[in-house]
């Protein structure tokens, strides 16, 4: 394809047509515009007049240029210009498509597959044979097959939650023949990548496609000085500021997984690794099961937490009050030292400590327990607690578990105990025997310096052998254990301080506590800790960082797991949680020390980005530009020839507008064929254009808005019945006059509104006379009405039939009202109560007559809990202005007065009628007052309280 910059041409030979442009220039230049023949009687006066300037028989240069451009645009258009044409994998050698297939590609995997699919499709068209390789697979023989064979398979290939590892092993798997290679790479340097890339470059054209999504990953979390340290790595050499949101997730108390912690990791400068310390309360920290980078779907962005993050709560309990003594002699000192870095300690009496649900309770030389303490402890142990007891002088002196086995002791104890290696004893201090198989301590190395000088002895019972998990080299049990329910009781037959043995001084003490799961190690377990066990995966991660049940995956020996911890997971040991005998370790995608390095490619490799600018045909654009130019040319030629003047300016404006209209959909069409982003941009432009047009100049509705907002303006709904509308108009006019005379409300002349077209927001009050044949407002009008009601407007519905309120809409107007009101957002209504604020907003009223005096009116119902205020005749009803008032007394007719204040319609008879009209006017005043001042008259119920507070 012939390319100029990012534009390619489908049929470039048409571009030769541009050569004729200069020729056209001369041709057009020689031909002036044709004259107009015009009949004109005044020609007699023209005879003999000569042109002053005879230059214009040549086409003006700008018109020529316009025509040139039009022709050039047409030629270029027909040559089929394409912006960002799809790159073609030229050639007919076999094509090898290599996918790294690691988690680093998970973010843009669909795009990669799509890209590979495009290449595959093209290879199919070209008849090339293809092989698709995923480097995270085990090395296998490569066979080239027809492209169609791969189509289906490509779609189901998924990335692996590990990175390609042993790339050298692939080298001899490729066929000897030459082939071209398309390598969809994650951009990371994997061991052996250079070698493989060199091989591909030798065999043929190597095209590398790298995604633009930055590779970041989370390292396993560490625990440092009480804070959780989450660290993340990015590509080495990828500079610049960046910040990542890290989210800790785990089950909440009800077991639903949710976000428990959030922090931001900031990368500054060129550093490839950054960390954030999260200070989490133990409750939260123990719940967190995984940390992940928010919004990133990739196994690298997830790190699972295992027991290493869990901090156990250990209750340390010693007997009696703290003895005055040396700190080093305290029975708890060594326990504190051993446990403080790795566990949360609770030092409190048993009954206080147990509700804090400790994972373990350590009783250091506690002999007697009170009955409630014992019961609570037993219950706690049965539920899975670990009770660790240390012997000591008190225990030795007491008769606990002497004759009967104490429920909270693993063995019966012999009286006294024994002392070894002291000045008064025969033998030397004893050493530990190797831990027997089946003991939780099995595999721990025995230091030489551990000596036991004194201990309590277990009664030789039948179960003693099974309960012993550590013994001295003479076979005396040193540590015994008994299971109770789901929990266990462990007795260490020496003291927790260095009085009886050197065990608390040795590292073995700490390791034993660890093995007992009293403490947990903060760091990743090393090979030594993992060795000797089979670790069975419980949960595995897929490439997108989602947890999957591991199912029946075979266990992994500890040594292999330890290797994987440093080298990263692989097919044999996928990332996830591995369970051993008494703890779980997480194998995360990234090791603690892992780092990312960018891949380097051979010089001959062609490197492309994954993001393909979508191919965009410019043909339509060029052709329409040519068309527009020709249209402009027509206008210009007309203008030159003097023909345009006769058509007048209007036509010219019309033509320009037509051109603009012609250009606009063209731009839209182009956008529509283009990428989505461009489409949005186009839409945005259109939107701004619309905004521009709305912002400019006065709008059709402006005079209405100005009229409605000149002052307080009462409005009525036009019913379409001219007589009723006239009465409404005069009614509100008369009410306005009344208000003007009697109150500080000075309304402007009322406005009749059309619900469908007019804006309601300008009016505080709308009078709505209902006719029997009133049409239903449209949906849009209902939206406006509800918005009006919700934002504090009031509608006075008037059925004008004097009976809707009493019999509930028996008349046809009442039915019309029901029909109309069904779509309105009207709260519950009630007949107006005696203490409604409407009865006293200006005048004190109890009846609300209009032209009719019967019937009450309906307003928003008071809340059910409204209480009678003390000392005043009102209830406390302080909230809200009723959004609707419904009645049928034909108020407008009673209010109606002409410009001179002469009433238009009769009300009642004689003086009583005048009185009724006066009350009707007062109701109108009260109503408008209520609309404008809300419930402030209701607030008077607080007056007694206010006066009281003022001390009057």
């Amino acid at each position, binding site marked *: 394809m012939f390319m100029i910059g990012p534009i390619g041409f489908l049929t470039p030979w048409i571009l030769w047509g541009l050569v004729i442009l200069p020729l056209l220039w001369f041709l057009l230049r020689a031909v002036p515009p044709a004259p107009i023949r015009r009949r004109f*009687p005044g020609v007699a006066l023209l005879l003999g007049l000569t042109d002053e300037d005879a230059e214009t028989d040549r086409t003006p240069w700008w018109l020529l240029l316009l025509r040139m451009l039009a022709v050039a645009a047409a030629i270029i258009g027909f040559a089929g210009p394409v912006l960002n044409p799809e790159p073609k994998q030229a050639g007919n050698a076999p094509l090898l498509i290599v996918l790294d297939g690691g988690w680093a590609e998970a973010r843009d995997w669909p795009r990669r597959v799509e890209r590979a699919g495009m290449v595959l499709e093209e290879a199919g068209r070209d008849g090339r044979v293809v092989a698709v390789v995923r480097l995270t697979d085990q090395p296998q023989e490569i066979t080239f097959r027809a492209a169609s064979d791969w189509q289906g398979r490509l779609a189901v290939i998924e990335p692996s939650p590990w990175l390609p590892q042993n790339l050298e092993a692939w080298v001899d798997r490729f066929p000897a023949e030459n082939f071209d290679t398309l390598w969809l790479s994650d951009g990371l340097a994997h061991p052996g990548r250079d070698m493989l890339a060199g091989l591909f470059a030798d065999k043929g054209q190597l095209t590398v496609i790298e995604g633009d999504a930055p590779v970041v990953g989370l390292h396993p979390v560490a625990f440092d000085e009480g804070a959780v340290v989450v660290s993340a790595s990015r590509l080495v050499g990828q500079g610049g500021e960046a910040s990542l949101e890290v989210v800790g997730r785990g089950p909440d108390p009800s077991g639903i997984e949710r976000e428990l912690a959030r922090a931001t990791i900031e990368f500054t400068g060129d550093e490839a690794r950054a960390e954030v310390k999260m200070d989490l309360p133990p409750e939260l920290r123990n719940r967190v099961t995984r940390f992940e980078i928010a919004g990133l779907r990739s196994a690298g962005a997830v790190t699972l937490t295992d027991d290493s993050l869990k901090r156990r709560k250990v209750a340390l309990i010693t007997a009696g009050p703290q003895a005055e003594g040396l700190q080093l002699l305290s029975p708890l000192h060594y326990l504190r030292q051993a446990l403080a870095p790795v566990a949360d300690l609770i030092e409190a009496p048993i009954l206080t400590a147990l509700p804090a649900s400790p994972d373990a309770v350590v009783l250091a030389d506690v002999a007697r327990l009170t009955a409630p303490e014992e019961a609570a402890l037993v219950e706690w142990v049965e539920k899975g607690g670990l009770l660790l007891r240390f012997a000591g002088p008190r225990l030795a002196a007491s008769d606990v578990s002497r004759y009967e086995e104490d429920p909270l002791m693993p063995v019966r104890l012999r009286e006294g105990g024994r002392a070894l290696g002291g000045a008064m004893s025969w033998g030397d201090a004893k050493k530990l025997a190797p831990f027997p198989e089946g003991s939780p301590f099995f595999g721990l190395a025995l230091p030489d310096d551990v000596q036991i000088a004194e201990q309590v002895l277990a009664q030789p019972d039948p179960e003693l052998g099974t309960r012993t998990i550590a013994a001295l080299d003479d076979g005396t049990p040193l540590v015994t254990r008994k299971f109770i329910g789901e929990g266990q009781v462990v007795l260490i037959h020496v003291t927790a301080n260095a009085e009886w043995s050197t065990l608390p001084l040795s590292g073995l003490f700490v390791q034993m506590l660890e093995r007992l799961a009293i403490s947990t190690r903060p760091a990743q377990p090393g090979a030594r800790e993992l060795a000797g066990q089979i670790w069975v995966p419980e949960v595995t991660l897929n490439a997108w960082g989602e947890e999957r049940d591991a199912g029946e995956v075979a266990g992994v020996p500890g040594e292999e797991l330890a290797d994987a911890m440093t080298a990263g997971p692989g097919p044999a040991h996928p990332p996830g949680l591995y369970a051993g005998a008494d703890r779980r370790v997480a194998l995360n995608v990234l090791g603690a020390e892992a780092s990312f390095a960018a891949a380097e490619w051979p010089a001959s490799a062609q490197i492309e980005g994954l993001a393909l600018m979508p191919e965009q045909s410019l043909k339509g654009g060029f052709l329409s530009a040519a068309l527009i130019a020709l249209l402009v040319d027509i206008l210009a030629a007309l203008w030159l020839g003097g023909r345009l003047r006769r058509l007048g300016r209007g036509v010219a404006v019309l033509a320009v507008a037509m051109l603009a209209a012609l250009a606009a959909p063209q731009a839209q069409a182009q956008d529509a064929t283009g990428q989505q982003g461009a489409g949005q941009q186009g839409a945005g432009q259109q939107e701004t254009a619309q905004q521009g047009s709305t912002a400019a100049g006065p709008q059709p509705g402006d005079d209405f808005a100005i009229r409605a907002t000149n002052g307080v303006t009462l409005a009525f709904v036009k019913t379409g019945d001219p007589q009723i509308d006239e009465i409404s108009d005069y009614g509100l006019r008369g009410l306005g006059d009344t208000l003007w005379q009697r109150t500080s409300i000075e309304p402007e002349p009322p406005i009749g509104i059309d619900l469908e077209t007019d804006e309601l927001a300008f009016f505080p009050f709308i009078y709505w006379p209902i006719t029997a044949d009133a049409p239903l407002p449209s949906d849009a009008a209902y939206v406006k009405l509800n918005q009006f009601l919700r934002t504090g407007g009031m509608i006075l519905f008037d059925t004008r039939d004097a009976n809707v309120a009493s019999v509930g809409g028996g008349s046809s107007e009442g039915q019309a009202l029901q029909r109309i009101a069904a779509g309105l957002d009207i709260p519950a209504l009630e007949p107006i109560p005696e203490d409604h604020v409407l009865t006293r907003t200006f005048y004190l009223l109890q009846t609300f007559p209009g032209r009719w005096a019967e019937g009450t009116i309906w307003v928003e119902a008071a809340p059910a809990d409204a209480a009678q205020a003390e000392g005043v005749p009102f209830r406390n009803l302080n909230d809200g202005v009723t959004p609707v008032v419904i009645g049928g007394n034909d108020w407008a007719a009673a209010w109606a007065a002409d410009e001179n204040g002469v009433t238009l319609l009769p009300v009642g008879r004689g003086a009583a009628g005048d009185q009724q009209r006066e009350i009707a006017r007062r109701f109108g005043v009260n109503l408008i007052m209520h609309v404008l001042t809300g419930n402030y008259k209701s607030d008077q119920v607080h007056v007694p309280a206010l006066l009281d507070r003022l001390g009057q």
Partner: protein
Amino acid sequence: MSLHLQNEAEALGQSLPPLLAEAEMLAATVMLGEHGRRRAGAGDEFWQYRPAHQGDPARAIDWRRSGRSDGHFIREREWQAAQSVTLWVDPAKSMSFTGGKDRAPKGERARLLALALAVLLLRGGERVGLAGLAQPRAGRSQVVRLAARLAGDEGDDAGDYGAPQTEGMVSHGRAVFISDFLGPLDAVEAALTRAADRGVRGVLLQVLDPAEEEFPFDGRVVFESMTGALRHETQQAGELRSRYLARLAERRDRLTGLARAVGWQFSTHHTGGPAQSALLWLYRALEGGR
């Protein structure tokens, strides 16, 4: 066509009061048998007082005169005789020009004006004729005749520009020439001279299309007369405008001068404007001569 023209003209003529031509040369223009009766009739001049008879309307009584005696007197006026008016409407091709689709050709407007004037005059009791086409006659029926003649006057064989006709012009009568006066002015001058020789006074009404007044042309144009006999080509019509307008003004000045020299009146009417104003002017010009 003639009926249409008549209807239109009558509609136009109805809005004006009846007209009596000024009886300046009354005696000289009276045709035998139709004038000099020296008796009471319709007129403006006082004739005699006579005693009121049974049947005379009360408002005909001259109370000023009656007050001086016991009887009632009626003031009678002398019957004034009619004037002969000869109309000439340019039948040439140039009159069929119109500069806009919504405007009637000049000729149509000219005939309309002529006939309307005729209707007015006839209603006032004058005699109206068409130069070279119809003898001046009074009476309602003359309207119909004039309309028919005018309508039939649109000759296909007419030249580009017409020359005023003086045939059938009554001595000391009145004459109305309606044309665009774009042709040679010598013919107009000759006609006016002949008319002046016979004591005829009258008006010249130049009917022009607004396009002829404004010359709204631009660019390269070949102008042709209505028959195509005259041609003028220009590259920049817009350049010619000022000179064209100057020539037009000069021509109008000359026509005004010619008219004044022989006691006639001259005015220009544009087809873009209402015909009423032109008719009014014609009416006044014939009436007052000022």
